[in-house]
């Protein structure tokens, strides 16, 4: 059996890594990937909470988070493509 607390440590570390990347890295794509990483850490924490309380409500919320991640990815990819065609002062990819 997996200790749930370890999953929380891992989720915290992933969230911190995403935050560090968001603050320190300049390329737009890496920034967006770090945002996705923070969402992944959030739904890992939801799954771990769900296991703690032996209730699947956390799984349902995690699925909402996954849908949100997909929508955010689509919007981000749209922004990337628009900026690629935009003026030369667009943020670097």
């Amino acid at each position, binding site marked *: 059996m997996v200790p749930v607390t370890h999953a929380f440590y891992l989720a915290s570390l992933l969230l911190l890594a995403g935050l560090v990347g968001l603050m320190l890295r300049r390329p737009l794509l890496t920034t967006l990937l770090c945002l996705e990483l923070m969402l992944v850490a959030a739904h890992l924490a939801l799954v771990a909470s769900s296991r703690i309380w032996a209730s699947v409500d956390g*799984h349902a919320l995690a699925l909402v988070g*996954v849908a949100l991640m997909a*929508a955010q990815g689509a919007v*981000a990819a749209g922004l990337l493509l628009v900026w690629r065609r935009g003026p030369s002062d667009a943020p670097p990819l």
Partner: protein
Amino acid sequence: MTATLVLFYVAALVALGSVGMLLRSREPRAAVRWMAATLAAVAAIELLLLAPWVAIAASVAGAMVLALFGFASQLSAGGDAEPPRPPESARRRRLEIVAGLVLLAGIAWILLGTWGRQLAFPGHDLAPGAAFGGLRQLAAAAEGERLALAFALPLLLFAGVLGALTLVDRGQGERG
């Protein structure tokens, strides 16, 4: 140490290592590859935590998002290299390092101070014979919490953005 625990540690190491490489990578395509490895490792951990449907959904959504990002980064001609950073003052850099170290020390203090309580809690016992994390249970939970709209809206947004991008791309292709 059980096989499940070993698998968990291996997946956690893979996830953390891939995140480290993602943060270090200078090329967008390499960053997308390392993010894919991270997503796979996190999905494996979700499987070990008895959440198979979340793992499957996260893998599918992650694959779609990474495919979109990979496509966008492939289209960017000459945008691979990281741009040069503007010069920073040494004082500001020292301040940032001190603030980061204080934050890390705070986290280490919390973890070490509460280590005895946090060491290895496996979660409350599951009801015998219950299919924890099964599709029926998930559907009942989503219905109970009235989450159908919360599922539908992001997915509609995803489909809408993809449709808009396709239309814009076709329109520009016909004009150009």
